[in-house]
């Protein structure tokens, strides 16, 4: 589900439109709040509170009973609802495979392209040290 948290709400919605989404209801209406983000002393020590982030969440229940939860950074409640819907669909026997194939897999591929592009740009700024040729005498 990490892939969905990294996607835009519009991208998820667009892919869901190609699916015959079954009847469902909101178990928890989309809402926004805060999560306190923690770091660790020295990067690997005891935790400390770094600062908060806005987070949205929702829960969706399919008519067939599956319950899905959606959490994402930001204040886009609709995105949280779409993630919850996908989470519920992934668990259903009828939709699990198709959601993985038509929604999650292509979004994952997009994410990987964005990340590898960024990694290539970063790699170009890596320093190659070389030793100056020493002069004679």
């Amino acid at each position, binding site marked *: 589900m990490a892939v969905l948290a990294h996607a835009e709400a519009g991208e998820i919605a667009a892919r869901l439109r190609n699916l015959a989404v079954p009847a469902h209801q909101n178990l928890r209406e989309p809402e926004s709040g805060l999560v306190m983000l923690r770091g660790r002393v020295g*990067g690997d020590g005891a935790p400390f509170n770094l600062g908060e982030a806005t987070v949205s969440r929702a829960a969706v229940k399919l008519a067939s009973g599956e319950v899905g939860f959606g959490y994402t950074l930001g204040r886009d409640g609709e995105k949280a609802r779409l993630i919850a819907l996908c989470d519920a669909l992934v668990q259903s026997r009828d939709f699990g495979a198709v959601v993985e194939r038509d929604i999650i897999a292509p979004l994952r591929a997009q994410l990987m392209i964005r990340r590898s592009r960024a990694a290539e740009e970063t790699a170009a700024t890596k320093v190659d040290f070389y030793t100056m040729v020493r002069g004679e005498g």
Partner: protein
Amino acid sequence: MYVAVKGGERAIENAHRLLAHKRRGDQSVAEVTLDQISEQLGLAVDRVMSEGSLYDRELAALAIKQARGDLIEAIFLVRAFRATLPRFGTSEPVDTGAMRVQRRVSATFKDIPGGQILGPTFDYTHRLLDPSLAEGFVPDAPATADAATAPTPRVTDILGRDGLIESSPQAEEGASVGDLTREPLNFPADRDLRLQNLARGDEGFLLAMGYSTQRGYGRNHPFVGEIRFGEVEVEFAAEDVGFAVPLGAIELTECQMVNQFKGSATEAPCFTRGYGLAFGQSERKTMSMALVDRALRARELGEEALAPAQDEEFVMSHSDNVQATGFVEHLKLPHYVDFQSELGLLRKLRQEFSKAFADAQAPDAMKEAAE
């Protein structure tokens, strides 16, 4: 005499209307959008998120726009907004070792696994104003190279393997993590609270405090072990779900400062550490934070604490720019009654002075008359 006065509503209303007009500026100039602020003034957004203590680029951009670019005012707006939202809980501690680094440099070791990665930096620029930016500048596409697959371990982990540097303090079993947004600050404060305070502290204040340690007010001989900037994943242990759910990624800057040794009869000498962590690309902030974090460990490390940067009560009580600006700026609000009472007191003192002065003169005059 006490006189109650009321008034100024219309003046206030009109002042705010004028402010809105001034904020927009010349309306023949295109209005700046939140996307433009977020994309093109990204480091201002990072600072507002860090010191506003709220990771939300869009809100920080809105605050900058509303505050006419006054970043402390923007930070104030973000802090006020954060108080309106419920808190769902706390995240799992982020793993900066697993950061997708966009920049990572060490001033202590040239050859580190994963290499020195400069990323988008002002370092090595000539600080000459660039007139081409004044009119439609289109940058070249970034250069690319084969992406490194080698991991980029923290430099402090490498030093740590040989025992040359102290290891990070670990939490005691079941210890709670201090949160100064929930509990009032008490001294002495533990390192978790100190780091939280510094992470949201004013960059200028921390820069000055860090600088003071370099100039000899609490010297501790720092080296930048490592600075890294990039994306880390955030996970949240949601109660309703029953396990940690991914929330997405945030950008962080981390600074590991390596400082001079400590040792004892029972422990071999090793480097000590200061730590900085902040939202976004906030290099100056995290470097200053790490210097001050190290200085504040004076007592723990058995050093003489004589300098301001080593005084946790001084540092932590004055680092927050929202508190500081609130107290400084409140001075311009009406203090008519306060001032009236001061004025009354001053008049009385002056009266007493005149009388005493006259009395002191009088005997002389009488003496002269008698002669």
